[in-house]
């Protein structure tokens, strides 16, 4: 298994490098020069030239590419042009936030999606099935941005100011301002409360798709001979579903896991913006607008690696749920 993982990681290196190279040239050939963006309106031409030199922008593109690759090989991502800080530090600040958000969203999406899909398959062709199908389609097709704002409107604003619910959720940020003064338990709760809305809005979009996959796959599995065998054993229906049908039905759903990762990461861009969740998605999008090349490049690399790792996880999960792969 470990050998396999290493081989996979090794195989992904050219892919990641390829992504980095493409992003590098696309970024550098796009019009716009970061020096004028950061230098401000009153900068003297002489100073602007100095800034360009400091930023390493005076060299031709291919030289910059080689320099950058060389630095990368030594683990040096360079400094953000917009923030001045080492890119490594910025990413160290923001990556865990994005992982927390997307990890939670992913877990939520799969839990909810699988539950709904199973329920639909079990209650196949009833009103439960069709209303859940409708709901899935709804969440799948409405603009995510709008959904996020609606969640804020309902669960932050109206819940607190209009209906006076005992529980309402913060609309933005990762922690409360007085987080540092809380007991460890309160801190965990505080973080969880801040996580609810962004994770939900990210998860809802994915859950619909996962539910549809699960439903289809489950309907197929339910008609398999081994399900009849399980029933012939005298097992109660829920054990037939949970113990025999579900794991088989999950096999194709695991593939979706790998497919959904890029979708998830693109989703984080708007969720991070709407919920003021400091993370990689917004970082990279902002950096593109600011022509902050080092951040864009490093961000692209991180996302490429995350997708590769995600697919690796999908493969591992695949062999967890399907022993035929494990021994094949």
């Amino acid at each position, binding site marked *: 298994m470990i050998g396999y993982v290493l081989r996979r990681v090794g195989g992904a290196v050219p892919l990641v490098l390829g992504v980095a190279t493409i992003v590098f040239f696309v970024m550098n050939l796009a019009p716009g020069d970061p020096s004028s963006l950061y230098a401000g309106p009153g900068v003297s031409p002489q100073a602007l030239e100095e800034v360009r030199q400091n930023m390493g922008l005076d060299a031709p593109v291919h030289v910059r590419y080689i320099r950058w690759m060389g630095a990368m090989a030594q683990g040096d991502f360079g400094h953000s042009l917009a923030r001045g800080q080492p890119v490594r530090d910025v990413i160290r600040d923001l990556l865990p936030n994005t992982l927390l958000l997307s990890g939670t969203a992913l877990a939520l999406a799969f839990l909810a999606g699988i539950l709904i899909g199973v329920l639909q398959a079990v209650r196949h062709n009833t009103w439960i099935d069709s209303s859940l199908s409708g709901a899935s389609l709804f969440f799948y097709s409405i603009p995510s941005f709008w959904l996020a704002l609606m969640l804020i409107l309902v669960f932050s604003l109206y819940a607190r100011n209009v209906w006076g619910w005992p529980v309402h959720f913060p609309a933005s940020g990762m922690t409360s301002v007085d987080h540092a003064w809380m007991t460890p338990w309160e801190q965990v709760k505080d973080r969880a409360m801040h996580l609810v809305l962004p994770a939900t809005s990210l998860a809802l979009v994915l859950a619909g798709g996962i539910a549809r996959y699960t439903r289809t796959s489950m309907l197929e599995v339910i008609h398999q001979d081994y399900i009849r*065998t399980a029933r*012939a*054993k005298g*097992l109660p229906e829920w054990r037939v579903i949970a*113990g025999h049908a579900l794991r088989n039905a999950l096999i194709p759903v695991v593939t979706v896991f790998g497919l959904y990762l890029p979708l998830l990461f693109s989703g984080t861009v708007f969720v991070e913006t709407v919920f003021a969740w400091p993370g990689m998605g917004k970082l990279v999008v902002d950096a593109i607008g600011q022509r902050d090349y080092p951040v864009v490049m490093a961000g692209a690399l991180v996302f490429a690696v995350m997708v590769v790792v995600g697919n690796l996880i999908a493969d591992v999960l695949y062999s967890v749920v*399907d022993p035929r792969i494990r021994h094949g």
Partner: protein
Amino acid sequence: MTLLEVQDLRTWFAKEEGEVRAVDGVSFHVGEGEAVGLVGESGCGKTVTALSIAGLVPDPPGHIHGSSSIRLRGTELVGLPERRLRRFRGKEVAMVFQDPMSSLNPVRTVGSQISEVVRLHGRLGAREAKRRTVQLLREVEIPDPDTRYREYPHQLSGGMRQRVMIAMALSCEPSLLVADEPTTALDVTIQAQLLELLSGLRRERKMGLLLITHDLAVVAELCDRVVVMYAGKVVETGRVKDVFSQPAHPYTRGLLGSLPRIGSGRRRLAPIVGGVPDPAGWPSGCRFHPRCPHAWGRCSAELPSLRRRGGRAHGEEWTVRCWLEEEPLEPTPDVGKGP
């Protein structure tokens, strides 16, 4: 008391094309410790009959008619609530299905699938259940059962898997084993081994057996009695030695005619001309008449009833549904239509 008493079983399927009368008024019984063969061509309703007995007919689209009766040691199973029915499944009535490749759950170990039943009905602890499972695997002559316990179905050969199915079926010492073409999907040599194993285990445990097959040689070897089905109906029943030596129904004769002589190897049967009719619309009268070499006027008009054949010498159990038999065994109020 008879172990299994099936009376006027009607299992119909609601389909777009209309009602499919897959099993349409089938009656037979299996005595305690008795082995009964249920034979007939593919599509004649054997599997549906078996599923009906275990209450496994998918509903919808399938439905067992309320007037039908399936009694197990006197308990009526038709109309029994699912919760109570479950107590019979696996424990009293065990099943072995045709295709061992698809009948085992591919993502769970062989051991867990057997011990699950043991724990469910035997109320055993995990360790006890495992011990019992390994013992069962040994009984069905699976080598190295401790290793096999942890393996997945895809790691076993077809024959091994069917042994696993048998072990699973036997795990709770059922009084009736329904085996639906247990060897059809397997190699010839393995078929023989398996059948031998099955009959041995059955005799040891004095278990009733309903063996569904279209291999008459198997029936001849293993069974006490035989029930011949055609197009959702029983056409002939009787002791194996009677029916096989003097088949009364032209269909039975056809089946037997296709049985190769001992020593010349086995072939698939069906030298009877024509194919099994479409269950969505059975032929009128005797359902076999379009294929019957002896059909005459009445055959296409009226459904013959089951008539007793021969006398006491045949245990009063030899019945045939054919107009060629002179003596009606019973009056024929129902001409094939259900109430």
